[in-house]
């Protein structure tokens, strides 16, 4: 293999240099930003067998199975990733493998889109996620409409109202489908609509029916809000139950306070696209879009910090 680095102010120019010198068969092995542009590493494999390849080497006897597992595979075990997912991700590098094995997608918050309904078990962080999304939209100059369908929990509305007052947006309370439809009728200029729901256990038929009704009445896209740190098997079932009701997206919360992210991986493995990550306490900066790079970094960070203490050397 011939390997060569090219630098140019822009990617297109660098690619032209690669093609001009190495021809159409050259492969781009990596690219990165450098101070004044981009740097591309290109490789070109020589055609035909190389002379030393012809040397006959007999197969050695009795190879043994290697027991090695890469750091990221160990990290995945630590987090409680399923064996199937560990296998899928084993080849690494982790960010690329995650991007290939799981789905990542932004929340649909564009003007004129479907309302977004946040669902999930009690205490998952739905209300705080609504606050963070509303804050992000307001700071970007868009006034969203916020509706809460959580009429059950004491103080739920007040908690949300305190934030919406700060943000200068109205909070509509609508627990019943009919009230929701009326509330949605007040939507102006296709403003994004965020709907908070009561924490629900979807394995309870009545609560399940209530969420299905809520989704139907609002025509909303459902995003599951699920905390890191909970049991991955439990998370997989919760995610599957929400997917059955039409959820396609997941917001992972509490990445800043949980050590194990197996529940997040399990939700993604159940088919939900990872959209957002709760990474801190702040309303404005506590949640960021989830990317394969962010997830990979978070997965690798904890086991490294938890690496076994190295004993003092013997004198």
């Amino acid at each position, binding site marked *: 293999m011939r390997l060569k680095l090219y630098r140019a102010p822009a990617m297109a120019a660098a690619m032209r240099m690669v093609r001009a010198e190495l021809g159409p068969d050259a492969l781009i092995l990596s690219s990165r930003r450098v101070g004044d542009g981009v740097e591309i590493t290109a490789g070109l494999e020589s055609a035909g067998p190389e002379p030393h390849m012809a040397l006959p080497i007999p197969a*050695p006897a009795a190879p043994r199975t290697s*027991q090695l597992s890469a750091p990221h595979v*160990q990290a995945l075990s630590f987090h409680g990733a399923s064996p199937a997912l560990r296998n899928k991700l084993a080849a690494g590098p982790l960010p690329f493998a995650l991007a290939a094995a799981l789905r990542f997608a932004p929340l649909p918050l564009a003007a004129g889109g479907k309302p977004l309904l946040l669902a999930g078990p009690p205490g998952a962080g739905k209300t705080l996620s609504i606050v963070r999304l509303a804050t992000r939209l307001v700071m970007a100059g868009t006034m969203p409409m916020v509706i809460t369908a959580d009429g059950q929990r004491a103080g739920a509305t007040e908690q949300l109202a305190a934030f919406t007052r700060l943000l200068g947006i109205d909070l509509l309370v609508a627990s019943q489908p009919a009230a929701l439809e009326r509330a949605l009728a007040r939507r102006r200029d296709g403003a994004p609509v965020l709907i908070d729901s009561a924490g629900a256990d979807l394995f309870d038929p009545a609560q399940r029916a209530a969420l299905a009704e809520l989704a139907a009445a609002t025509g909303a896209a459902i995003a599951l809000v699920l905390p890191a740190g909970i049991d991955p098997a439990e998370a997989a079932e919760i995610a599957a139950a929400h997917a059955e009701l039409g959820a396609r997206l997941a917001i992972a919360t509490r990445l800043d306070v949980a050590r194990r992210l197996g529940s997040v991986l399990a939700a993604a493995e159940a088919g939900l696209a990872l959209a957002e990550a709760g990474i801190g306490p702040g309303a404005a900066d506590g949640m960021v879009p989830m990317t394969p790079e962010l997830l990979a970094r978070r997965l690798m960070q904890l086991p490294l910090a938890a690496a076994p203490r190295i004993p003092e050397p013997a004198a």
Partner: protein
Amino acid sequence: MTTAPTLTPSRTAALRAGQIVAVASGKGGVGKTWFAITLAHALARRGRHVLLFDGDLGLANVDIQLGLLPAHDIASVVAGQRSLAAAVQHHQGGFDILAGRSGSGVLAALDPAALDGVLAALRDAAGAYDHVVLDLGAGIERTTRRMSGFADLLLVLATEEPTSLTDAYAVLKLHHADRGADAASAEARIVVNQASTMAAGARTYATLARACAAFLGHTPKLAGIIRRDDRVRDAIRRQTLLLLRHPNTSAAVDVELLADGVAG
């Protein structure tokens, strides 16, 4: 749901006994001998019984790095004066060493049958150890290639430099060609050494992995990334072990983590 593996603990231990881990790089000067020594030490610190075998053909220097004056070395084994087990000496780091003889070229000069004899003796001796770490020479000539093909696990060291990447790729390519369908049972994994940061190390791995995926049709896994660390040079200059002298330095932590992967 996947079925749990049916191996009993004792069976697992039997499979693991005597795993031969070869360390290669293609290019010289990327820290191969240092890495082999430090890996052997890290495994020993995990309670494993480890033999470090200096297979650095013409220019063996494991003993030099460790400041040893070996009474016996590989030359006496090849000459038939001593058995391999009797030529081994114990190092205070907690592992055994079979030293090479720098400048003798004793292994490089062996004909294929004689080399296979030495390797068969190594396989026998390996039965008494949990891991044998085989420090291979730079380059891709016949003896090195034969020895890397013999290992259960080949760790290929690469640094960020294009020359190192190209040479590491050549080693991986030959290993792939030699092992063919057998590649899964004697897999090669990549170690990025002297990485300026973890992220830069991951990029180096990705570059090499992509070349292998495109040109060889398979992607070697990452064994680990070791960050560049001035204290490595300090340990080598003082002929001592990094994990003894600077146990909490970044390179030491990285090798320890990598050793966890090898130890399984």
